[in-house]
């Protein structure tokens, strides 16, 4: 291929890449759903033309006083004080804790929870757990120093006893 031909082909490629990225980046073929009058222009939304994407992330505004829920897993041992269970205590990733462990506790799936607690049980100097309690430790968006809002109890799953799991207060998170 001659140098001139290579330049022409490359120029066409550059123009296509820049054109596509410019259109997608500013949502031209995918205006926001909120603007109903432009709904007929929603012809090509991400990721249809991936790897050409818009960067429409974290765009919604938030204001003082809003609350962010934070689910915390608390283990209640047979003896001693309750302990906060983090993903590393269970030998699983944070994603697995959020997507597998917490839903299993919410559903009352005792077998699944026990399986995931095996790593914790193996550790020495750890008292065996009697039950697992989900708690919400919400964080308040605020200009004050204090961002912790009042805690709420959620689902509690007894690990040893046969009866079905009890719910002290279903907080809906």
């Amino acid at each position, binding site marked *: 291929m001659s*140098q001139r031909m*290579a*330049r022409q082909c*490359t*120029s066409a*490629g*550059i123009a296509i*890449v*820049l054109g596509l*990225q*410019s259109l997608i*980046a*500013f*949502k031209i073929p995918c205006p*926001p759903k909120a603007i109903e009058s432009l709904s007929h222009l929603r012809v090509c939304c*991400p*990721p*249809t*033309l*991936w*790897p*050409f*994407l*818009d*960067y*429409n*992330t*974290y*765009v*919604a*505004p*938030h*204001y*003082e006083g*809003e609350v*962010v*829920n*934070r689910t915390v897993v608390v283990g209640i041992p047979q003896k001693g004080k309750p302990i906060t269970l*983090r*993903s590393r205590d269970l030998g699983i990733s*944070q*994603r697995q*804790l*959020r997507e597998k462990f917490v839903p299993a506790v919410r559903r009352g799936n005792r077998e699944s929870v026990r399986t995931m607690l095996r790593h914790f049980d193996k550790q020495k100097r750890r008292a065996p757990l009697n039950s697992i309690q989900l708690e919400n430790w919400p*964080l308040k*968006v*605020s*200009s*004050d*120093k*204090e*961002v912790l809002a009042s805690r709420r109890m959620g689902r509690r799953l007894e690990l040893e006893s046969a009866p079905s799991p009890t719910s002290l207060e279903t907080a809906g998170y």
Partner: protein
Amino acid sequence: MPRAEHHADRSWGARWNAYWFRPAPFVDLAVCRLLVVGFQFFVLLFPTLLLKYPPYTMFDHYAALPDDSYHAPLILNLLMLPAGWGARPPLELLQFVYAATIMVGVPAMLGWWTRTACLLFASGNLFMSAYAYSYGEYHHIEALTCLFLTFLAISPSGAALSLDSRRRTRKQPAVPQATHGELAHWPRLLLQWLFSLMYLSGAALKLFGSGFDWLNGFTLQYYLLQDAAFWDCSLGISLGQHHGLCLALTWFTLIVEGLFFSVLIWPRTAWFFVPAASALHLGIYATMRAPFFHYLPLFAVFVPWSRVFEWLARWREEKRRASLLVAESGQSAAAHQ
């Protein structure tokens, strides 16, 4: 200069060519190849080390999903065209592509049959990421890397620092090898444009979506606390308790994103914007656990590597001369005694 020739030089075509096809050192592009291909090769080998949702470890999960949840991006349909438009890749094919992409990563990095290896490496990465994003959820992390890998495949990225260039030198030792080429500049420049468009899109859509409310500091504080709470990141939670800091970070984010395109107009501003954007991504990871590590090797396109190497060579030469001088003066002092 004659009037007609002067006029011709100022035509749009000539300006375009002068902008995109200005002769540039092959080394600059080759270093980018080494870093970007090397990084992606590392990610393929150890996917869970840097990524939260590595597409390459979830093929079994995706393959088990029903057909009606599969909506392939255009690029995947094009890559699957031999099997028919809209064909869904089977698990075995995905596993084969994963293994084959890792294998071609080595020659792509070392520059052996560079164009072919880079083309296969880019296609494999495009294929796997596009497949992973065919089920509704998608992420931004690999998009620019996949595009740049494609640019490397169609540019002379193996003309320096490669086994190909060594082979050529050995075959024709008498022929001096070219150090510059007019097709060596555009891949780096085009990626700089894509970075600028990406950041401008981020800033514009934030302001379009929230107006100036995005600048209230509470918006960033909310997202910081939300992601830090989700990923159990204590640094994010503790920083999220300082509204003043969140307000400063809001302005910093918007200035970096909104003005990053300055690097195209005044390249020297890259000295500020590239470290600032790197700090932004590292900070986002430290506090919100969003792993945009892929951008760090891609930022190599802003570095004039040939000049860095020249400077290093000069510095080494000066150091050698200085040590020689010290040795000589030591010898003469000993001779006098």
